[in-house]
């Protein structure tokens, strides 16, 4: 093509158009999953409860990315930065200002919302790979910024901060791990319900219109700039809450826990769970928590290769992630009902 301009025809959007009804689970399935989440911790060891807590936390972070990418079509490799800001907000408030852990969570949601919203402003002009690079830059910069000398008094520099694990309130007879699990579960449920409703609302429809076709959306009267930055803000806020919970659960924050590797894991979680399918976020979180451990146990020296091969297997079998399995299951159930 000799002209200096290249024309891209319609239908080449980066993110699939997932209709909003296909984004959630049915009521029956949801209740079964909820019951399992409530009952299982009563019968397992503390370490497994801790892993389930981490599963919910990473699930939240993946969910946040899913709202941004699956909902509004914007790509981000910078989620680890928002996660870090949330974690540090909680850690600093708890350790320096002695604020109750539960109260630090809304604070870090607000702080991260502001941060994400402001970051979304200049990112408005970028899309696709360019946005990926910008968010990537944020993710690589964050650990270095947290190590800066003049913040060291608050952040503890390279050493990081130790966070105290909260006891169960009102003298409830449960271990710290179990209390933290139920606390995380409550927060996760609240955010999950909020997200589902957000995507079904007017704002959610605006996100999806932008994802599917920005120009068409703006000509229908959607304020593209507002909703794109809003998506960044909401996503950052949820990631920040996940970061706060993560800091409390792990009892430790340090700059090098929040590198680009975390952002890449969250991205993989989203792909494995199915882009744009909210319940899939938790399936993806399970993948990024358990599969690396599994790979390690299969072969120590080649754990990276084993992980890569497993990841390839998953994306070959189900290129659309766990969502594809859910759809297949639904169709099967439908056929069984007819017979």
């Amino acid at each position, binding site marked *: *093509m000799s002209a*200096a*301009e*290249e*024309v*891209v*025809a*319609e239908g080449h959007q*980066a*993110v*699939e158009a997932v209709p909003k009804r296909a984004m959630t689970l049915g009521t029956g399935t949801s209740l079964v999953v909820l019951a399992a989440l409530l009952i299982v911790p009563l019968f397992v060891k503390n370490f497994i409860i801790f892993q389930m807590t981490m599963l919910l936390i990473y699930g939240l972070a993946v969910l946040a990315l899913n709202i941004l*990418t699956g909902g509004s079509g914007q*790509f981000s490799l910078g989620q680890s930065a928002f996660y870090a800001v949330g974690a540090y907000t909680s850690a600093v408030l708890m350790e320096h200002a002695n604020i109750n852990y539960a109260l630090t969570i809304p604070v870090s949601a607000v702080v991260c919302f502001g941060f994400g919203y402001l970051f979304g402003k*200049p990112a408005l*002009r*970028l*899309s696709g*790979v*360019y946005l*990926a*690079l*910008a968010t*990537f*830059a944020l993710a*690589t*910069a964050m650990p*270095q*910024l947290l*190590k800066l*000398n003049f913040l060291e008094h608050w952040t503890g520099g390279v050493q990081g901060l130790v966070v105290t694990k909260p006891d169960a309130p009102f003298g409830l007879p449960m271990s710290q791990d179990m209390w933290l699990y139920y606390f995380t579960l409550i927060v996760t449920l609240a955010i999950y319900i909020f997200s589902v409703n957000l995507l079904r609302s007017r704002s959610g429809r605006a996100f999806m219109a932008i994802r599917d*076709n920005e*120009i*068409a959306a703006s000509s229908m009267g959607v304020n593209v700039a507002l909703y794109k930055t809003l998506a960044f803000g909401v996503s950052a806020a949820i990631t920040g809450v996940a970061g706060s919970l993560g800091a409390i659960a792990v009892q430790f924050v340090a700059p090098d826990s929040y590198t680009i590797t975390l952002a*890449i894991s969250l*991205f*993989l979680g*989203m*792909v*494995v769970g199915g*882009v744009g399918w909210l319940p899939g976020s938790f399936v993806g979180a399970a993948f990024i928590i358990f599969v690396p451990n599994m790979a390690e146990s299969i072969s120590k*020296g*080649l*754990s*990276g*290769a*084993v*992980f*890569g*091969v497993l*990841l*390839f297997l998953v*994306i*070959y079998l189900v*290129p*659309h*992630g766990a969502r594809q399995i859910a759809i297949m299951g639904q169709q099967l159930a439908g056929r069984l009902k007819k017979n």
Partner: protein
Amino acid sequence: MELFTNQVLAGIATGAIYACMALAVVMIYQAIDHLNFAQGEMAMFSTFISWQLMQWGLSYWAAFVVTLAFSFVAGIAIERILFKPLAKAPVLTNVAGFIALFAIINSSAGLIWDFTIKQYPTPFGSAPFLGSQLISTHQAGMIGVTVLLLLGLYFFFQYTRIGLAMRAAASVPESARLVGINTSWMIALGWGMATAIGSIAGMLIAPVVFLEPNMMGGVLIYGFAAAVLGGLTSPFGAVVGGFLVGIFENLAGTYIPGVGNELKLPIALALIISVLVVKPAGLFGRHIVKRV
């Protein structure tokens, strides 16, 4: 003033590394329309192959040619075996595939050649170039090779039938298929060429950063940044972008107080993003117009 010119020269020298990598990044972007996260690891693996060949007694240039051929074939094989089945899968799934490939290559190279740092020879010598302490003959040679590579690619894409076919397949695949171009093989060819260019970059970079499985981590980030800065559609832009990133990085390290080695990368990236905010398609990239 002398400090300034010295720093610019040093920046050009490191920029040559980034330019080489950026060229490989742009090549594959032209062919497949994505950034390949595993590109650095593929280059690292090729470099290890050439090192192994030299250990077995081949001369530098013999190893160079064999490695080039190996990389070309390996690139095509990876596309045919691993990524062709994903051609219809969503873009983000493909990106996950690149990350998987990254993990596989990195981990296997670590197992085969372990993680100790190895010396890698240079064909250009490492004496000071034209009496300057800042730029060695190796770095000058690297700049020379990058420029030659760029010229070669320009002629290939501009004046050969197959170059034209590749450009057509990348920009309008449907129409290209209608005029009888085998677009699927053009993509494979793009992978082969990009891998071969990556292996050249790897072999040129290895004497500077030393050979080890993680040698490409930092370089690839700068290579991406350079490619994006120059405009992902322009090989010329990639090379210019590479040199600019090298210069940016050095000047930021010298003149902005409190910037140690740690903050060089974030600052360079921040600068690139500021440029992108003003020119969203990169300095030399084509602006893409969407049809509604």
